[in-house]
């Protein structure tokens, strides 16, 4: 079956929000000063917004989070200010304990930083250990067992199990 080519076939496909920004960053990131400043500012904003989101997801006020951290509400307000940008590893560790989530600090390629920069706000939500499906027993997932196993396999694809073996030639 052949398809007739019309003028419409050559119209550009409209870019999504993320494609448009990624496309711009590809050229802007050519400049070292620009890319370092952009990533630093984006990271500071993202951390502030994630602290706020994790607090709100747990239904805590700033005052309640401050009490859990042993600090004042005004300190939490600063930590949630996208313009703050002076986070120490120590305070991030304390926050990760209070939220019961893992802290991951890593050097990454700029391509990875750009992808993080264009993530939507939902990417900032992280379940506490208590709500992390991966560590729930399979029996607690009625109806979702296959999904659970599928996710577990995709998370650890090379993990050998009793029923699998790896042969080398």
């Amino acid at each position, binding site marked *: 079956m052949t398809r007739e080519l019309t003028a419409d076939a050559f119209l550009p496909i409209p870019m999504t*929000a993320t494609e448009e920004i990624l496309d711009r960053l590809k050229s802007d990131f050519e400049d070292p000063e*620009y890319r370092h*400043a952009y990533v630093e*500012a*984006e990271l500071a*904003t993202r951390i502030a917004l994630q602290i706020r989101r994790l607090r709100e997801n747990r239904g805590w006020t700033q005052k309640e989070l401050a009490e859990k951290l042993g600090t004042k509400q005004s300190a939490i307000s600063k930590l949630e200010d996208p*313009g703050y940008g002076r986070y120490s590893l120590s305070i991030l560790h304390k926050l990760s304990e209070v939220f019961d989530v893992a802290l991951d600090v890593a050097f990454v390629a700029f391509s990875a930083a750009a992808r993080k920069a264009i993530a*939507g706000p939902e990417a900032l939500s992280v379940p506490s250990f208590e709500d992390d499906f991966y560590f729930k027993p399979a029996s607690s997932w009625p109806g979702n067992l296959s999904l659970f196993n599928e996710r577990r396999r995709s998370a650890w694809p090379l993990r050998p199990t009793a029923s699998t073996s790896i042969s080398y030639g």
Partner: protein
Amino acid sequence: MSAEDHELVIVWEHVDSHGRRSLSPWYYGLQKASRARFDAALDKVKLWGLDQAEASKVITPVSKQQKTKKNRAGHALLYELRVHANPQLRPILCRGPVDRQREITFLAPATERGDRLEPKNAVEVAIKRYQEVANDPRTHRRRFPSDSDDGDGGDP
């Protein structure tokens, strides 16, 4: 809602009756690092939408400290994009004014020193420009930023 699901927030800037842009010349005159920080903040607004950006304080209502007898009525319409740089950048904008959910319009450049905006008349200027854009958006706004710093005038 994911970033891919919603359309990009459309960003405009005020232009005067001679077609001179109000923000682009200032934007292109920023130091490279400051412009990068400005872009990082604006990208969050574009990707997250205005309600989320406001809730997260990426944009905030213009501080009450900037309220004067002169600007009391129009003050509530204005926001500032908060950009952590040196000096702190606080370009003044409004939501809409045509579509308040999916558009913003930059009205005047500003920086912040000691809780005060500079230039001192930035809020008054922004209110006047807001009224121009609201009354005649076809004449008084263009997409931001301009393609380049092509010398089409605007604020020094």
